[in-house]
């Protein structure tokens, strides 16, 4: 199937619309992306974008609370939403003949969400509970601490979920004003992919979204990260017996000509990133770091990632220590592999394999309408949708020299942040109060 065939339109109020017919299965997927996320936040209201996402499920005058999800599910559909640094997105996947309801729902809540004060308070504790779920995870604690140090001024330093103090103190007015300010058609991208007629869907979008007034363009994010003048190191202590290592380097934004070479670099060092919606896992047992760390039993796992951000981003290496090996041992091996990347060009065989892997992932990503809609919308939100359409061919243009150049440009020791999660090995206490029979069977008292 050709990857073109995108019907692109811009309504008078500034709403960008991307439509693509896909007749392989009788399903359709609809996304609305807003260019609003933690990138747009400031201290005092960190987490506001994510909280707004929750409030958009709390009802409008037309669709009272709970009715949105029920209405979608009655049609056999699924729905959800997600918030990240650069965006907040809402989606529905439905049997194709039922696409009209998602179109109406999203038009409605673009402008008419209620933000009932009682619901705001009830959601406060839900979101605090969500934050506490993340805090239970060592990787989350390390990542949150590291990104606050990698960035000194840029809002990418704030957690998307929000700082606890802000979640405790934010007001209904903070939320509602932020919503009204940023949920405007000229700050949104609507994407549909599926078994429908694109011109007909475009006409319906005109009807439903055309009269929503445009707002002032969003405030540009003015913060620019000052140069880093030396390595930064952090330590996070927490429960458990397993230690974790994170190394982060400042890296290019998605629109940079260095982006594709650093994606190839990441694939060769840590494995190919899967392109399904929401990621997923891809085996990466041939990468350089797997061979250097997992084959040698220093680490039980290693991955790398290059964030695709609108602003300068982070290239990260994540390692899980195995056995009694120290993070210092692991760090030394990672640094040796990174130094090799900076000294020698990758082989043409490595490059060819990285390109082939990504091509296959790219082909798979076209097999579901939601994956296509996700990628088109994501790309248009952080760059342009052409970023997705031309992904494979731009990848094929990457040369070993380009990968060497980006390694030398970005993987500089002074521009690194190194984070250690040090498990405190506190013996979990057992306080069983089971019945004697069950206790005996379950082996309580070991």
């Amino acid at each position, binding site marked *: 199937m050709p990857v073109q065939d995108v019907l692109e339109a811009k309504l008078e109020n500034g709403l960008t619309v991307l439509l693509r017919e896909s007749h392989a299965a009788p399903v359709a997927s609809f996304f609305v992306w807003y260019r609003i996320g933690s990138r747009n936040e400031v201290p005092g209201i960190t987490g506001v974008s994510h909280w707004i996402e929750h409030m958009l499920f709390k009802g409008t005058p037309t669709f009272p609370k709970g009715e949105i999800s029920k209405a979608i599910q009655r049609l056999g559909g699924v729905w959800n939403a997600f918030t990240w640094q650069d965006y907040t997105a809402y989606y529905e996947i439905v049997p194709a003949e039922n696409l009209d309801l998602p179109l109406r729902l999203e038009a409605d809540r673009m402008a008419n969400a209620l933000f009932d004060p009682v619901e705001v*308070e009830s959601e406060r504790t839900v979101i605090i509970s969500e934050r506490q779920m993340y805090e239970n995870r060592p990787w989350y604690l390390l990542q949150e601490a590291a990104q606050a140090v990698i960035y000194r001024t840029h809002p990418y330093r704030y957690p998307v979920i929000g700082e606890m103090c802000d979640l405790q103190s934010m007001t209904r007015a903070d939320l509602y004003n932020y919503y009204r300010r940023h949920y405007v058609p000229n700050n949104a991208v609507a994407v549909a992919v599926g078994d429908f007629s694109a011109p007909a869907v475009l006409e319906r979008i005109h009807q439903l979204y055309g009269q929503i007034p445009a707002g002032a363009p969003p405030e540009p994010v003015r913060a620019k990260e000052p140069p880093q003048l030396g390595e930064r190191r952090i330590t996070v202590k927490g429960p458990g017996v397993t230690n974790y290592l994170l190394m982060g380097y400042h890296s290019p934004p998605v629109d940079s000509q260095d982006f594709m070479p650093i994606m190839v670099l990441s694939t060769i060092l840590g494995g190919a990133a899967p392109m399904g919606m929401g990621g997923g896992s891809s085996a990466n047992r041939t990468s350089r770091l797997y061979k250097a760390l997992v084959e040698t039993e220093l680490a039980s796992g290693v991955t790398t990632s290059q964030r695709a951000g609108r602003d300068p981003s982070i290239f990260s290496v994540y390692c899980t220590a195995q056995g009694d090996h120290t993070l210092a041992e692991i760090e030394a091996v990672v640094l040796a592999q990174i130094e090799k990347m900076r000294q020698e060009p990758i082989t043409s065989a490595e490059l060819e394999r990285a390109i082939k892997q990504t091509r296959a992932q790219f082909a798979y990503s076209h097999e579901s309408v939601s994956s296509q809609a996700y990628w088109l919308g994501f790309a248009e939100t952080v760059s342009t949708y052409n970023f997705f359409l031309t992904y494979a061919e731009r990848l094929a243009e990457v040369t070993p020299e380009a990968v060497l150049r980006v390694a030398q440009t970005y993987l500089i020791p002074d521009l690194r942040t190194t984070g250690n999660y040090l498990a405190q090995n506190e013996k979990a206490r057992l306080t069983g109060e089971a019945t004697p029979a069950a206790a005996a069977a379950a082996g309580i008292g070991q």
Partner: protein
Amino acid sequence: MIAEKQLSFPGPETITRRVLDNGIIVLARQNPASPSVVVRGLLHVGANDDPADKPGLASFTTEALDRGTTSRSFSEINEAVEAVGASFGIGSGRHTASFGTKSLVDDLDLVLDITADVLRNPTFPSQEIEKLRGQLITMLQERENNTRAVAEDFFRELAYPNHPYGRPADGTLESVRAITRDDIEMFYRQTFSPVRGAATPMLVSIVGAIEPEAAIARIDKYFGSWNTQRDIPRQHQAELPPLQPITEIRRRSRTMPGKSQSDIVVGCHGIKRNDPDYLAASMANMILGVLGLMGRLGHNVRDEKGLAYYAASRLEARLGEGPWVAYAGVNPKNVNLAVDSILEEFRRMGDEPVTEQELSDAKAYLTGSMPLSLETNEGVAQTLLDLELYQLGLDYLQRYPDLVRAITAGEIQTVSQKYLHTDAYALSVAGPE
């Protein structure tokens, strides 16, 4: 219109089913719109086969299969699969070991060749076994530090004493340290076979850019000559011991200092997938903790009381009577309130019929969502395996909407009374003080 749509679901007209000479059952369906081929398969060997003193043996053995064969090293296997952007995975469950591949159609031979090699000719090299052991131990240590995993493990121990379901499928730190290479090789030789007893043949489904007869020929080429009878005798899969009903309230908790949130698992024994009560129980579960935003549990615990980000339910109805549980993550000071709220919803499911609206919403979702679950090759391949594994019949998807529509509120109330108890259940909690 509806009849025509139902016919477009996979059924006897579009699923090709074949039994190979060695007993393997193959199900194939073509998807001309796709460039890829997905293969899913399973063998009847799993954690239920673990000796009581060696929990985790089936899992360790299954994970070790691709660490080397008579003709390929572990790294050669990885190089071959990853070089073409294909994926190959193998995993162990309680009743079955499953495998799956995804590749572009041109690479199908390559991935099938490797899959067959891994299943038929593993050599379990000592050095690779030790590497894997280190990874498994790290994984188990991470589980020990995960409140949700600890609560799930405790629940199983409480709900299934003296039963394989009560043991950790991935083993314990002690057992994984103690399992030897000889244990693994012997377990493999005794249990991995295309047929373990007449009722439990290996199943393979293959879906995507390949015509069914060609697909079946490919499976036959790589697996058709797998005959294990001449080798040492295979052990048939042991019957599970009968379940001992939960007759009282069982509680267990673990304090995990330094954590922010407590995880709760509370529930009872459920049913098998092919139990006549399955559809009613499945709809009860959807109303209890799935539909809308996590059903009645989500409404009560999250939406009304603001206690949790997640509060939902899960019915594990497969080859045995798996658990039917509610689970939630809450602030430690709210554990009792959340448990009371969950039990209140258990009670309501049994005391009152569900509303007409809830019933019709659940029916509409279950019938309406079929096109979504069948959109991808992965979805179809898994569905075909399930049709065969649970003996549902190739026309099940076409009959399914009528089966769903026939379920009554009375039947849902009856299964809820039968399985969801408020005076006999297991409850586990893991979290900070």
